[in-house]
C-alpha cells in the first residue's frame, strides 16, 4: 500500500542490447516480445490459481463455524445442518475443492445465503456499474495525468516558471495525500449541498457519474502525473533528445514524437499499480455515493457473512485486476519496439 514513488529506470539506463537475451533453441529463436508475453501470461495463470485457491479457502479460514456465524445464534440446528449441506461443507475438503472448480467452469458460483438467488445473477447485474465507474475514472486519470505531467516536466526542464512548478507540485502532493472517500465526502458537501449543482447519490444518468468518477480519479491522476513528470524529465535528459534538439524540430514534434512514446512505456510500467488500485477504490466510492455495484455488494455481504456472495465478488475483483495487469503488459510490449523492459 505504501508504494515508493521511485520511478522505473529511465530509458537511458535500460540495457537495450538484445544480444543479451542469450542462446535460444537452435534454429528457432523466440522473439523477446513473444517470450515476454509468454512469461507474463504464465505469471497471470499462476496468479489465477492463487486467486481461486484463496477464494475457496476463505470460508475455511474463518475461525469457528462459518455457517453458524452466518445464520446467527437463533438459527435451529436443523437449518444449520441443511445450509451446511447446501454449501457442500459436509463433504471432504478435496471433494469440496473439486466441486468448487467444476462450478466455476460452469459459471455456477453458488446461491446467496441472504437473497437465495444465484450469486452469478447478482454479479451480472452489478458488474457493469462498477466497470463503468472504474473505466470512467481511468479515462479521467489518464487524460488528466499525461498533459499535467508533461507540461510540468517540460517547463521544469527549461528551468522556467519555477514558482508555478512548485505550486503544481504541492497541489499534486496534497491530492495524493487525501484518500478518495474523504475527497468524495468533500465533493458532496461542496457540489451537492453548498452549491447544489450535482446529484450526490444513486446511479444511472451522466450527472450522477460526475462526482463519483472525479473523486475516484483525482488521487490516481495526481500520482500518475508525478510519475509522468519524473519519467518525462528522464527522457528529456537522454542523448537522443539532444539529437532531436539538434535537428531544431518544432516543440510539437520534439515532445509528441520523440519524447512521448518513450515516456509512456516507462510511466505505464511504474503506474500499473495505480490503475489496478482504481478498481478496488470503487468499493469506497460506491459506499459514499450509494451506487449499486460490486463494491456495495461485497461490503453488505461481509457484514452479513454471506460467504458464497463474498467468494463471487472477490473472484470478480481479482479477475479484473489480473486482466488489467495483462492488458498493461500487452500495451507495453506493443508500444516499446526495443522490448528492453521485457527482459525483467
Amino acid at each position: 500500500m505504501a508504494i515508493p514513488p521511485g520511478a522505473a529506470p529511465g530509458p537511458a539506463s535500460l540495457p537495450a542490447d538484445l544480444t543479451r537475451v542469450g542462446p535460444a533453441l537452435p534454429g528457432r529463436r523466440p522473439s523477446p516480445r513473444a517470450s515476454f508475453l509468454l512469461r507474463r501470461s504464465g505469471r497471470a495463470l499462476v496468479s489465477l490459481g492463487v486467486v481461486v485457491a484463496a477464494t475457496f479457502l476463505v470460508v475455511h479460514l474463518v475461525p469457528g463455524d462459518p455457517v453458524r456465524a452466518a445464520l446467527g445464534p437463533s438459527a435451529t440446528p436443523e437449518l444449520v445442518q441443511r445450509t451446511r449441506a447446501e454449501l457442500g461443507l459436509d463433504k471432504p475438503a478435496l471433494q469440496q475443492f473439486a466441486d468448487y472448480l467444476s462450478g466455476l467452469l460452469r459459471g455456477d458460483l453458488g446461491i446467496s445465503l441472504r437473497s437465495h438467488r444465484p450469486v452469478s445473477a447478482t454479479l451480472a447485474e452489478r458488474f457493469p456499474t462498477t466497470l463503468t465507474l472504474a473505466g470512467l475514472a481511468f479515462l479521467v486519470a489518464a487524460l488528466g495525468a499525461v498533459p499535467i505531467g508533461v507540461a510540468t516536466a517540460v517547463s521544469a526542464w527549461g528551468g522556467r516558471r519555477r514558482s508555478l512548478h512548485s505550486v503544481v507540485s504541492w497541489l499534486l502532493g496534497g491530492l495524493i495525500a487525501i484518500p478518495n472517500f474523504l475527497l468524495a465526502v468533500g465533493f458532496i458537501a461542496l457540489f451537492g449541498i453548498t452549491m447544489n449543482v450535482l446529484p450526490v447519490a444513486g446511479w444511472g444518468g451522466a450527472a450522477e457519474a460526475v462526482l463519483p468518477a472525479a473523486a475516484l480519479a483525482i488521487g490516481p491522476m495526481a500520482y500518475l502525473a508525478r510519475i509522468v513528470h519524473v519519467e518525462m524529465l528522464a527522457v528529456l535528459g537522454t542523448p537522443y533528445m539532444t539529437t532531436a534538439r539538434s535537428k531544431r524540430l518544432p516543440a510539437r514534434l520534439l515532445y509528441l514524437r520523440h519524447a512521448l512514446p518513450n515516456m509512456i512505456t516507462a510511466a505505464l510500467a511504474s503506474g500499473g499499480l495505480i490503475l489496478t488500485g482504481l478498481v478496488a477504490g470503487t468499493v469506497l466510492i460506491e459506499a459514499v455515493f450509494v451506487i449499486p455495484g460490486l463494491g456495495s455488494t461485497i461490503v453488505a455481504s461481509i457484514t452479513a457473512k454471506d460467504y458464497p456472495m463474498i467468494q463471487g465478488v472477490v473472484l470478480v475483483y481479482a479477475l479484473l485486476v489480473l486482466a488489467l495487469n495483462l492488458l498493461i503488459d500487452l500495451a507495453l510490449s506493443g508500444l516499446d519496439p526495443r522490448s528492453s523492459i521485457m527482459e525483467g
Partner: protein
Amino acid sequence: MRSGFRQRLLSPQGIVTVVALCVLLLAVVFAPIVWGPAAALTAVADRGQGPSGAHPFGTDDLGRDVLARVLVATRLSVLLALGSTTIAIVGGTTLGVVATVLPRPVRRMVTALIDILLSFPWLLLTLFFSVIWGASASGAMLAVGFADVPTVARLTYTLASSVTGRDYVRAARIVGVGHAGVIVRHVLPNILPPLLVNTAAHASAALLSFAGLSFLGLGVQAPEFDWGRLLREGVARIYVNPMVALGPGIAIVLTGLILNSIGSLTGETASSALPPPRARARRRPGAPERAGSAAVVEAADLRVSFPGPDGGLVERVRGVSLTIAPGETVGIVGASGSGKSVTAMAIAGLLPGEAHVGAETLRFQDIDMTSPPTSAERGRLGLELAVIFQDPLTSLNPSLTIERQLTEVSEVHDGVPRKEARRRARDVLESVGITEPERRARQYPHELSGGMRQRAMLGMGLMGRPRLIIADEPTTALDVTVQRQVLRVLHEARRRTGSAILFISHDIALVSGFCDRVLVMKDGEIVEELAASGLAQAAHPYTRALVACVPHMTTDRSRPLPVIGDGDVAEEARA
C-alpha cells in the same frame, strides 16, 4: 546523514512537524480524559445543530458535541493504526528475512507469492482478510496489518538479500555461524534502519486504510468510535450539518499528513528535485557586431559555466576563441573534462538549460548563437548544422524507425513531401555505406550494429545541406575496424558536401590523421593550435605529452606507457 536529519529537523517543515506530532500525542493521551464526558453527553434538545460557539462542529443526532467526539476518537484511531503497522512490520520483516535463508526452490515460491500478492491493490487484500476476521476493531486491525505484510516483506527481502551476499556474511558462514546467528548478528542490524525509516509512511497508510474500513462499517463498531466510524455516521447526516462528516475527515487528513511528514524527515532522500535555473545566454555589452563574415564558425572569448555542487558556478570553458573556415576540418583534442565537448555544444547551441553561456562573439555563419534563434534561423540550423554524438545507441530514439528519424529534418525544414523524403533517406543511407537501405530504413536502432547506427546518425546530418558537421567523439564507442570505416564515410561526406567538420576526440593520433588543424584544450582553455602536419613541432608541454602517449613502432614495450600527470611525461617527451 545524522547532520542532514538535524538540519531537516530545524527547517520550517521540521519544526511544524514536531509541534504537530506533540499536539497529536497530547490528544492521544489526554483527549479521552478531558473531552470523554462531553463526547458521551447526550442532549436531545441540542441534537442535529450546526456549528455554534458552544459546539464548534455542531452536534450529532443524539446532541453529542462533534468536536469532542473527534478529539476523543484520536486515541482509538491512532492506536489501531499503530497496531496494524506493528503487525505489518513484524510480520513482513519476519517473512522477508526467513525467505532469504530458505532453500532455493522454497524461496522462489515464497517470493513469487509475495509478488503476486503485491500485484493486488491493498484495499482488495484488506477486504479479503476482513472476511476472515470479521467486522470488528480487532479484526480490522489484523486485516489492515496483514494486507501490508507483502509490501514490507518484499522490501525486507530485497534489503536482506543484499546483506547475505556480502563477503563478511559468507565468511561468518564458513566459520560455522548458523542461519539464526547470521540473521541476528549480521542481517537485522543492517536492514533495520532503512525499515524503520519507512515505518511512518506505513503508519500513515494504515491510518487511512483503517479509516476506510471503519467507514465501510467493517472496522470499529458502535458504541465505540474512531474517525472512520464518525465519518460513516456523519455522511448519513451530511445534509443536516456538513461539519459532522467534514470534522472527522479533516482529522484523518491532518494526521496522515503529520505521519507522512515524519517519514520525509527521517527519510534519507528529502528530494526537492527542483530544476536548474533557466539558461542564460548573454552577449557581452559592447561586443562588435560583424555582419556577413565568411567563416562557418566564429567564437571569441567563449565562456561556459555550470552550477556547482555547492550552489556556485563552475567555469568549464574559459575564454575560448576559434574560427572555422568553410570546408575546413578542425580537430579539438584534450583529456576528459577539458571542455572540448562543452565548447562544441555551445557552438551548436545545444547546452542544457542550467548552462550559462557568455561570449564576445558566437556565431554559426551569420546566425548569432548567443540569442534564441528565430524560426527562420531554426530551419537553417536544422539543415546546415549536423551533430554526431559519441554513443549512437543512446543518441538515436529507440522508439522511432531509422527512416522516421532521417526524413523528419527534410519534411520539417525543407517542406519535402513524405514520399520524396523517404526516397532521399534511402539514397543517403546508401551513400553512408548501409547495405540494404530499404530494409534497414524500416528497422529500429536496436536492430542495427554499432557501426551501422553511427552511419545512420551521420546520414541524419546529411539529409540537410550541412555547412558544419560537429562530430563529438564519433568513434569512441566503436571498435577499431569500425572506427576506420566510419571515419572514411565522414571524410567522403565532407568531400561531397563541402561541409566543414569540427572533430572532437581525446585521441591525438586519430585527429592528426584526419584534420587540417588541431586545437589542444586543457582545463577549459585552448593551450595550443597547430597544423596537423606540425605535431612534431608542438611547443606546449601538454601537447608534447599527448603526442608522447601515442605508441609507435620504436616504443620500448618493456616500459609502461607514459601517463600525463605532473609534467614528468613532458620532460620525458623532451628528452
